[in-house]
C-alpha cells in the first residue's frame, strides 16, 4: 500500500505501471479484476482568476501518518488487493498532476468505492495547503476545497 510524496513531477501512468508489475510479481497476473484510478491535475484558473503556478506546502510527518490512516481504513472497509496514493508538494504548473489514487480489487464495486473514499478522505484529513500565483504575480492561499460530490 505505497504512499508517495513527491517534490518532483508526478507521472501517474509510470507509477501505475511500476506498481502493477510489482503486484503481478507478488500475486501473479490475473489476480485482480478491477483497477480504479483518479488523477487530479492543476487548473489554470480558480475563482475567476487566471492561475499560472501553485506551491503546495505540507506538514510532512502528519501528512504521511494521515495518508497511512486513510489507506488502512480503506483496506478494512473494502476487500482490496492493494492501493496507491501519490501526491505532489512544491512548485506545480497548470496541467501537471497533483494527486493520484488507485485501487486494485477483484471486483469493480470495491475499486470504485475505495478509490473515491481515498480521494475524499485525503481532501479532508491530509495536511496540504495550496498557495496560488495569479497571472499578475499576486499570491494567495486557497482557503477551501470544492465539494467532492456533485449533489
Amino acid at each position, binding site marked *: 500500500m505505497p504512499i508517495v510524496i513527491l517534490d518532483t513531477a508526478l507521472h501517474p501512468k509510470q507509477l501505475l505501471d511500476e506498481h502493477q508489475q510489482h503486484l503481478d510479481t507478488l500475486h501473479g497476473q490475473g489476480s485482480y479484476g478491477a483497477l480504479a484510478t483518479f488523477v*487530479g491535475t492543476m487548473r489554470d484558473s480558480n475563482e475567476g482568476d487566471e492561475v499560472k503556478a501553485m506551491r*503546495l*506546502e*505540507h*506538514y510532512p*510527518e*502528519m501528512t504521511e*501518518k*494521515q495518508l497511512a490512516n486513510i489507506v488502512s481504513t480503506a483496506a478494512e472497509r473494502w476487500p482490496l488487493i492493494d492501493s496507491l496514493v501519490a*501526491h505532489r508538494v512544491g512548485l506545480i504548473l497548470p496541467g501537471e498532476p*497533483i*494527486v493520484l489514487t488507485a485501487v486494485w480489487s477483484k471486483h469493480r464495486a470495491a475499486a470504485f468505492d475505495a478509490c473515491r473514499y481515498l*480521494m475524499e478522505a*485525503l*481532501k*479532508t*484529513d*491530509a*495536511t*496540504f*495547503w*495550496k*498557495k496560488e500565483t495569479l497571472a499578475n504575480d499576486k499570491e494567495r*492561499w*486557497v*482557503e*477551501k*476545497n470544492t465539494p467532492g460530490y456533485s449533489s
Partner: protein
Amino acid sequence: MTIKVKFFATLRENLKIDQVDVAADEAGDVVDVWRLATGGADMPEHVLCSVNLEHMPPDTRVKEGDEIAFFPPVTGG
C-alpha cells in the same frame, strides 16, 4: 519539559512563527499552547489543530513531549 509547537500556511506567515517550544507545566490544553506560543494572539476562526500528528479539538489536554500544530483548513488533492 517542553511542548513543540508548529504553525503552517497562513498562520505561519501571519504570526511569523514557524516552530517554537513552550513550557509544558504552563499548558493545560491546546488553547493554552496557542496562547503561550503566540504571546496571546487571537485565535482566528476555523483554525485546526493536531496533537502528535492526529487531528484533535482545541480542548485536548497536552503533556510534556507533545507536538502541537496549528493550521488553516487543508486544501490538498
